[in-house]
C-alpha cells in the first residue's frame, strides 16, 4: 500500500495509480508541459485545478529533497513548494517501485526550453542568466550548496522587464551554516559545465540563435556572479571624510534588491579609516516593502516598478508628506486595481497581475509618446488588453487552458512528456552491448563481501 508523507496533503492525490511506474501512467492524469531534462522519470500530473510535478527517485533522496525544499521555503528562498513523498509503491508484478516526490507546479513559470522553443532574443538569454546568477547568490547566502546548478533545474517567472529564477530540483543540495569559498566555486564550476552543455544541446537542436555562443554565455555567469557576490559581501575601506559611502553601500544593495540586516562597521585606532562589511543581507528588499504597504506579493523587479509608480502617484497627488501606508492604499484602489479589472476574466491566465500592471505602464509610456499626450491609465489598460494581451500565450497553467507543447520548432518530440527522449525522427536500431550482459548477471556479492574472490584476486590460495 502506498504511504504519503505530506505536511499539507491534497486528498485528491491519494486515489492516483501510484502502483504503476510513472512512465506508464494513463494519459488522463498527465499534462505535457515544457520542462528541462532530468535523469529521473518526471511527469506533470493534473488533479482538478492543480498541476503537480512528480519525480520517481530512491527513498532517501526523495525524503531528503522534500525536507530540503521545506527548509528553503522556511528560509524564503525561491524554490518550488514540496507537497509530499509517496513511498511503499509496489507494481502489479510485485516489484517494489521507487518513491515519488511531489512538488507544486509553479504558476506562470517558464522552463528554459519553452522560452527557447519559440526563438529567443540574445538579450533575453542574458536576462535569464542574470536571474540564474541572482538565484545562485541568494542560495549561497543562506548556506545552500546546490550541487547541480543547471537551467533544467530552474524555472523562470517574468519579473517586470527581467526574469526571476526558482530552484526546481534540490536532490543534490546541502544546507550548511555558511558556504566556504571552495563550495561556492564548486557550484559555479558545475553551473558553467551544465549550462555549456545545455546551450550546446539547444544549439545542436537548432533552438539557439546563431548570434549566441555557448562559451561566451557561460563566461558571463562567472563574472556576473563574482560582481554580485562581491557587492553583497566584500569589505570596503575609506577615510573618515567619506562617511556617506556607508549610506551609498546600503543604497546600492537595496537597488540590487537586497536589504542589509547587519552591517559591520569598524574603525582603526585613530579613527581615520573606516571599514564596512555587510554581514547579513536578505533578498527581497522591494517585494517586502510592497507586501507591507499593499499586501501584493510580487517578484522583486515587479515590486520595484510598482513602488516607483506608487512614488509617482504620491508626488502627483501632492501627498509626499502623508503616511506612506495611507497613500499606498489609495494607489492600490485608484491605480492598480482599475488596471487589473480592465483585464477580462477570460484573459486573466495570460500573465500575473503585477506583470500586467508593469506592461500597461510600459505600453502607456510608448503610446503617450506617440500621441504627444499622457494617456490615462485605465484607458491605456483597455488599449493594452486589445492590442497586446489578447495575442499572448497563456502562462498560467490550469485544466482549462492547458496548452500542450509537444513540438520544439518544426520537429516533433519522441515523447511529449519527456524532452530527454529527443526528436521522433531519430530512430536507431539497438546495438549489442557486452557490458549490459555482464550487468544483467545475477549479483553474487551485493550484500556480502566475496572473500574467496578477494583471495583469488590477491593471488592467494586458501
Amino acid at each position, binding site marked *: 500500500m502506498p504511504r504519503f508523507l505530506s505536511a499539507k496533503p491534497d486528498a485528491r492525490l491519494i486515489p492516483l495509480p501510484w502502483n504503476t511506474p510513472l512512465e506508464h501512467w494513463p494519459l488522463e492524469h498527465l499534462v505535457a508541459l515544457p520542462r528541462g531534462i532530468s535523469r529521473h522519470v518526471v511527469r506533470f500530473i493534473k488533479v482538478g485545478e492543480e498541476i503537480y510535478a512528480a519525480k520517481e527517485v530512491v527513498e532517501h533522496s526523495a525524503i531528503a529533497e522534500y525536507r530540503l525544499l521545506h527548509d528553503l521555503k522556511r528560509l524564503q528562498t525561491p524554490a518550488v513548494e514540496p507537497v509530499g513523498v509517496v513511498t511503499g509503491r509496489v507494481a502489479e508484478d510485485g516489484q517494489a517501485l521507487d518513491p515519488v516526490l511531489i512538488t507544486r507546479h509553479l504558476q506562470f513559470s517558464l522552463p528554459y526550453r519553452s522560452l527557447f522553443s519559440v526563438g529567443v532574443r540574445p538579450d533575453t538569454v542574458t536576462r535569464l542568466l542574470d536571474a540564474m546568477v541572482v538565484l545562485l547568490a541568494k542560495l549561497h547566502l543562506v548556506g545552500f550548496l546546490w550541487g547541480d546548478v543547471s537551467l533544467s533545474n530552474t524555472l523562470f517567472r517574468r519579473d517586470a522587464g527581467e526574469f526571476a529564477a526558482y530552484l526546481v530540483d534540490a536532490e543534490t543540495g546541502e544546507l550548511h551554516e555558511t558556504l566556504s569559498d571552495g563550495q561556492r566555486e564548486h557550484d559555479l564550476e*558545475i553551473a558553467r559545465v551544465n549550462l555549456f*552543455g545545455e546551450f550546446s544541446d539547444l544549439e545542436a537542436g537548432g533552438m539557439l540563435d546563431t548570434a549566441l555562443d555557448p562559451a561566451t554565455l557561460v563566461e558571463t555567469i562567472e563574472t556576473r556572479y563574482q560582481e554580485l557576490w562581491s557587492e553583497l559581501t566584500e569589505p570596503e575601506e575609506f577615510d573618515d571624510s567619506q562617511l556617506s559611502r556607508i549610506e551609498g553601500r546600503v543604497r546600492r544593495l537595496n537597488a540590487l534588491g537586497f536589504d542589509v540586516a547587519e552591517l559591520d562597521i569598524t574603525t582603526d585606532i585613530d579613527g581615520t579609516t573606516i571599514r564596512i562589511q555587510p554581514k547579513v543581507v536578505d533578498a527581497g528588499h522591494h517585494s517586502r516593502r510592497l507586501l507591507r504597504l499593499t499586501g501584493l506579493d510580487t517578484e522583486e523587479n515587479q515590486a520595484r516598478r510598482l513602488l516607483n509608480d506608487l512614488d509617482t502617484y504620491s508626488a502627483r497627488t501632492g501627498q509626499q508628506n502623508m503616511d506612506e501606508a495611507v497613500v499606498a492604499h489609495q494607489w492600490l484602489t485608484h491605480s492598480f486595481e482599475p488596471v487589473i479589472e480592465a483585464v477580462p476574466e477570460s484573459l486573466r491566465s495570460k500573465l500575473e497581475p503585477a506583470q500586467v500592471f508593469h506592461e500597461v505602464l510600459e505600453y502607456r509610456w510608448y503610446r503617450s509618446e506617440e500621441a504627444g499626450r499622457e494617456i490615462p491609465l485605465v484607458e491605456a489598460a483597455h488599449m493594452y488588453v486589445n492590442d497586446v494581451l489578447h495575442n499572448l500565450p497563456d502562462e498560467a497553467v490550469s485544466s482549462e487552458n492547458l496548452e500542450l507543447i509537444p513540438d520544439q520548432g518544426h520537429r516533433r518530440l519522441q515523447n511529449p512528456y519527456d524532452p530527454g527522449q529527443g*526528436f521522433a525522427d531519430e530512430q536507431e536500431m539497438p*546495438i549489442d552491448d557486452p557490458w549490459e550482459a555482464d550487468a544483467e548477471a545475477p549479483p553474487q556479492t551485493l550484500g556480502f563481501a566475496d572473500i574467496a574472490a578477494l583471495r583469488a584476486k590477491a593471488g592467494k590460495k586458501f
Partner: protein
Amino acid sequence: MATVSFRDATRVYPGADTPAVDRLNLDINDGEFMVLVGPSGCGKSTTLRMLAGLEEVTSGSVWIGEQDVTELPPKDRDLAMVFQNYALYPHMTVGENMGFALKMQNVPKEEREHRVMEAAKLLGLEEFLDRWPKALSGGQRQRVAMGRAIVRQPQVFLMDEPLSNLDAKLRVSTRTQIAALQTRLEVTTLYVTHDQVEAMTLGDRVAVMREGVLQQVDSPLALWDTPKNVFVASFIGTPPMNLMPGTPVDGGIRIGKHVLAMPRETVERITDDEVTVGIRPDNLVITDSPEDAEFHVEKVELPGSDAYLYGTIDGAGPEVCARVQTRRPPQAGERVRLGVAEDRIHLFSTRTGDRIS
C-alpha cells in the same frame, strides 16, 4: 596521474567541539583506487571534500603529487568528480555528450575526438558514439557520465557515494562497471562509501574511519584477516564478526564454560584479566568433536547455498552467528558442536579495543 597525501589534515567545523576529521595521515599511491569507508559522520566525505577544495583544512595539509594544494582553489587542483553531471543532452550524440566540456576548455577538435574515442574504448561505448542518447539504458548512461570525467584526463578521480542515489538494479550494474573500469584505468581514485561490501569489492586499499579518526588503512583482505581493532573487526563483514568476552586461562581463553585452545605465547601476551575474542561467522564450522563448544541453535536463515545459524555458546552469553555450508542445516532448538581454526581467532584488548593477535 599523481599520488595524494593527507598530512595531519584536520577539519573542525565552526562551533563544533570535536574535529570532523582529526589529524588524518593517509598516502594514496599513484594509480591506486582508495576507498574511504565508515558509518555516517565518520569524516569520510569531509576528507574527500578537503581534497576537492570544498572544505577548508583547519590545520595540516593536502598534497597532490609534489604540490601542496591546501590553499588552491578547486578548479586548479586537476581533479574530476565522477558522476557529478548525469544529464544526457538529447540533441547531442553520445560522443558529443562525453566531450562537450573539453570544447568549453578550448581543446582542439582532433584532440577532443581522440580523447573521447579512448574513453569510449575503455567503457565499451565505441559503437554508440554517433548515436543519440535517448536509447541508452541506465547502465550505459552511467558509463557516459564516467566518460565525461575520463576525457578530462585529471590527475585524480573523486567519487562520493556514487551508487547511493541509484535504484537497486542500476547500483549493481554500475558497481560492476566501476570495478571493470578500475582495473583498466589506473588513475588515482578516492572513492567514498558507507557500504563496507562496496569498499571491499572495489578498493585496492580501504581506509576505515570512525568519528574523524583513521582506524586502519589496508588491503581488503588484510582488513578482513587482521583488523587492527574491535571497530574495524565489527564494521567489516556481514554478518559482523562475533565478539565475545573471554578470560585468559592456562592453555587458552575461557568463553562461558568453554575453553578455546590458544598457543601459550599468545595467551602470555595478554596482560589484562579480560579480552575480547573475535571469530568471523565464516570461520566457524560444525564438528563432531566433544572438545568443541556446544552451540544452542535458536534461529536458522537460508538466504542462498549457505546456512546462517544464530544462537549462543552453551546457551548463554552474546548471540553468535555461524555461516556454514551444509546440505542439511540444523534446525532451531538443536545443539551442535562448533569449531574454529586457531589461526582464525582474533583477540582484542577489552580495555583499548586494540588487536592483540
